């Protein structure tokens, strides 16, 4: 396989409004953090999508793999005592 001549890859997270979580928007290539931030601004906030940006080097992100799904996520589903379903909501409280 040939040598990859691309700049490092960075993942971009955008925040739509105050208090909202930063959500994954895509990725950009850049040589360093400042360039990554500017590229993210140019590519992912052209049309009012964001008031805040995070850029993270892709290699810094550790993710679960498809093989993990069984052991990580399945056991949670069939144990109903783990889910918050057995208390009364006080009157007037909206969920």
């Amino acid at each position, binding site marked *: 396989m040939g040598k990859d001549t691309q*700049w490092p890859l960075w993942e971009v997270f955008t925040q739509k409004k105050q208090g909202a979580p930063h959500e994954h928007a895509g990725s*950009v*290539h*850049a*040589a360093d953090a*400042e*360039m990554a931030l*500017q*590229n993210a*601004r*140019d*590519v992912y906030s*052209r049309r009012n999508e964001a008031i805040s940006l995070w850029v993270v080097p892709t290699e810094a992100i550790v993710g679960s793999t498809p093989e993990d799904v069984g052991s990580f996520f399945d056991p949670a589903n069939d144990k109903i005592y783990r889910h918050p379903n057995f208390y009364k909501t006080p009157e007037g409280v909206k969920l």
Partner: protein
Amino acid sequence: MKDNLIEYCLRLADTSLILGQRLGEWCGHGPILEEDIALTNISLDCIGQARGFYAYAALLENSARTEDDYAYLRDEREFKNFLIVEQANGDFGQTIMRQFLVSAFQYYFYDALKNSKDKTIAALAEKSLKEVAYHLRHSSSWVIRLGDGTEESRQKMLNATDELWPYTGDMFDMDETEMELVKQSVAVDVRKIKRLWDEKVKEVFDEATLPVPENVFMMSGSREGKHTEYLGFILAEMQSLHRAYPGVQW
């Protein structure tokens, strides 16, 4: 006074329009995807600024002329854009060097212009300042990375500086039209912001390990509509469709 104000608006609009047109030439040709978008974003910002000033000129003139008429039906001698913005794009280094030199000027210019006694001009300046702050940040970052980069990138930035420096003086010329508006506190005396521009250029050039040129003969004449050989070609391309199909609508 009103004629001077219209003329002033057209000058500001022309500079932004021609710069926007030049940057538009990069569409689809950027060195990387992200930069293709960055340059065309800046181009759209410039065109937006041009539209703002053309629209105000049209309002003041109160004739049948619209923004389109100013942009597409005036001839070379009527355009008053700065000489530097009509220079060739060259390679990416030259384009970004031109952007830095112009954006540094526009940053201090709009920052001063936002205090204009003319409310419309002040509002346009305030809005443009935000955009130009980003143009300056973006182009400065690149001048530093390319200047203090490899031998090849540094040489290209030196070449770009040599190519563009003679056109920087033109940005700081003042004539009677603008002096009269300065007396009314409507326009900016650009000689007063030269020092700020010099400092910014030195700051960025120092970090980019590029020498600031000295004792270079300055080209001039844009206020009188005297241009370099490039403007004719830029206008021919930009105006061709409108002139071939008068009154065409999208």
